[in-house]
């Protein structure tokens, strides 16, 4: 493995470090700030659970980031993570409640603009809505929890000292849950941009347990967060603890629990699966801002007490953060990529070509893309998805879904299911039937990823996408991730 890869991963690790230094305070800040929990205990619990959350449940939210823009060269990922980290650092210095999520989304859009790749507006709108939903939801969750706790404590009539002892344990428990949720939800920010270019390969621990390349990447990011917690978060915890609103330890517990539930909701694939199985609308898995969840919970509790303690200025700052953070980060990323490419001569995005061959045209016709949009363009090829769509929409406006279809089918990606890779790589993540179908394709070459997908679908129902109804979404999503993994593995250089 190339050493420069680890140097380039460095910016992601820096981002992880700053996340650990800042966001751990959201989970344990009040507990440590009020001396209810010792820093050593808080840091140890926080580190362990951040890493667990990242490795076990980190995949969900990173999938959505991947849809927004798939950075395909590691130098590009380096710059995206660096731009986000610098933005977070700068915003923190100027005292704004900054969100790593928003900085990362900005950086990805910066990369999209630079490489003229189309930003998936559907994914972007989904992400933007969750930013607003996150603090609101945290406030809505905090209020009933607070009322319940107040009622229970009123009934229980615990001795002050007993209550104190229980609160300490509860703060550690809530902190552990909070750290797990933080790891699960926010690891996508730290390492998400590196997922498509992960330098690791899957390996099987046992017959049933495989550590995927993404999980190894997330483990590394989790460790970076933990290092941030140990090296720098103490001073943030001590100052941030009571910054927003004076809180009793029990109120602090409610805030941490509400924050953690929100982060968990936006990260849990298990919950998404359960909701879709029962026919309920699923919560999008998106990295959200831990700081803004805390602010939301605090404002919820402040309103419950009549709103006198609420500092409304904070809300304005949050709103400003929604606009300024992604904008700054996108601009920084764009400029940084320009220098990286032209001054340091690094490849920041892969030269992908988009072709409208007759075969592609057939597929586009089958999938409802109007013929006038591409009929005249058959035989041409484009340097970017942006250029392709510009040419097509000039002839006929396309819907978001039609644009996505066109980009997916026109993207040229030469593949070869080589014998050496079939035996050399670990495919533990695939089912037996899936592996069987894959082996039958040994030696085959493809020009597009969808050709491989169709060939596999013809061989096994396990490779066939199911009708798009809620209960099948989990399966289809998994299929998408598996196919992306195969596309990376069997990529053929021409």
């Amino acid at each position, binding site marked *: 493995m190339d050493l420069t890869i680890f140097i380039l991963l460095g910016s992601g690790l820096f981002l992880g470090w700053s996340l650990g230094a800042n966001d751990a305070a959201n989970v344990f800040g009040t507990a440590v700030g*009020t*001396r*209810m929990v*010792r*820093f*050593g*205990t808080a*840091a*140890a*619990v926080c580190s362990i659970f951040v890493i667990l959350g990242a490795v076990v449940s980190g995949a969900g939210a990173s999938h959505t980031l991947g849809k927004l823009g798939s950075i395909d060269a590691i130098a590009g990922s380096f710059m995206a993570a660096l731009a986000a980290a610098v933005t977070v650092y700068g915003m923190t210095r100027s005292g704004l409640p900054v969100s790593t999520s928003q900085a990362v989304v900005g950086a990805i859009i910066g990369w999209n603009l630079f490489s003229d790749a189309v930003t998936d507006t559907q994914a972007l709108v989904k992400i933007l809505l969750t930013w607003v939903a996150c603090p609101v939801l945290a406030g809505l969750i905090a209020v009933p929890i*607070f009322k319940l*706790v*107040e009622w229970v*404590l*009123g009934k229980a*009539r*615990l*001795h*002050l*000292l*007993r209550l*104190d*002892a229980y609160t*300490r*344990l509860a703060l550690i428990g809530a902190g552990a849950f909070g750290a797990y949720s933080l790891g699960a939800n926010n690891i996508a920010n730290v390492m998400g941009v590196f997922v498509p270019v992960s330098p690791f390969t899957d390996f099987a621990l046992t017959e049933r347990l495989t550590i995927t390349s993404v999980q190894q990447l997330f483990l590394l990011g989790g460790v970076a967060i933990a290092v941030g917690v*140990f090296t720098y978060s103490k001073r943030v915890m001590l100052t941030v603890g009571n910054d927003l609103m004076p809180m*009793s*330890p*029990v*109120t602090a517990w409610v805030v941490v629990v509400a924050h953690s539930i929100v982060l968990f909701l936006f990260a849990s694939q298990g919950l998404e699966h359960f909701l879709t199985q029962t026919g309920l609308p699923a919560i999008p898995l998106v990295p959200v801002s831990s700081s803004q969840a805390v602010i939301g919970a605090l404002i919820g509790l402040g309103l419950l007490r009549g709103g006198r303690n609420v500092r409304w200025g904070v809300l304005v700052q949050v709103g400003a953060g929604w606009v300024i953070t992604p904008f700054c980060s996108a601009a920084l990323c764009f400029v940084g990529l320009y220098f990286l490419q032209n001054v340091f001569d690094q490849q920041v995005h892969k030269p992908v070509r988009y072709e409208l061959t007759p075969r592609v045209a057939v597929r586009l016709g089958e999938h409802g893309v109007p013929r006038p949009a591409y009929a005249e363009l058959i035989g041409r090829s484009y340097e970017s998805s942006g250029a392709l769509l510009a040419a097509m929409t000039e002839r006929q406006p396309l819907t978001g879904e039609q644009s996505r279809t066109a980009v997916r089918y026109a993207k040229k990606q030469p593949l070869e299911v080589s014998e050496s890779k079939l035996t050399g790589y670990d495919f533990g993540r695939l089912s037996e039937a899936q592996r069987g179908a894959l082996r039958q394709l040994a030696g085959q070459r493809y020009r597009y990823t969808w050709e491989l997908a169709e060939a596999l679908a013809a061989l096994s129902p396990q490779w066939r996408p199911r009708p798009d109804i809620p209960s099948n979404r989990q399966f289809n999503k998994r299929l998408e991730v598996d196919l992306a993994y195969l596309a990376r593995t069997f990529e053929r250089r021409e």
Partner: protein
Amino acid sequence: MQFSLFPKNITLFNKTRALEQQIDEFLDKVSQAGLVFSRAIEVYLVDGATDEFEAFLEQEEKIEGKGDSLRRTIELELYAQTLIPDLRGDVLRLLEDMDHLVNVYEGNLFRISIQQPEVPEQFHAGFLDLTRTVVTCVESVVLAARSFFRDMNAVRDHNAKVMFYETEADKIGTKLQRAIFGSSLPLEHKNHLRYFIERIDELANAAEDVADTLAIYAIKRRV
């Protein structure tokens, strides 16, 4: 940095329970001091500074000593274990204020033992009434303090009683002083009796001060 997560927490509940008992025991001492004070005054009014009265004084001294040592242990433990960090200062002040009440009980018995004021019989009923009222007043503040630890909502009820008995004690004290100064006793005798009425009434005033701060603590203690 320390990493001992579990050893402390496992013993935490045992230590917490022991400390809860010590706080209860300390408040018991304040109650007992009142009962002893009340009995000592009754005995003094009937028989003067007899051996029985001196025995009560000795008992009061022991209660005061035990209360002091309990208070110090509790304060040290609260700091050593960094318990209730947000309310520790309030609890320490509460304990010291309660301890002050015991000191006033003890101090009054000492003064009586040393100065042996002569209380004419027509004023016995007034002195007894005043004594019982201030002791009830202090007892109410002890209940308020107990509630602060266990049942915050009851603090208010007990505080209301403290305020009532404090006003009662003032009324009784004023009435008693009017009666004394209206009598034919020599002025120095009148002043001597007035001094003791004020010293006994001071207990109710001190109890009211504690109740006032307790009311603030109770608001702070709200979840």
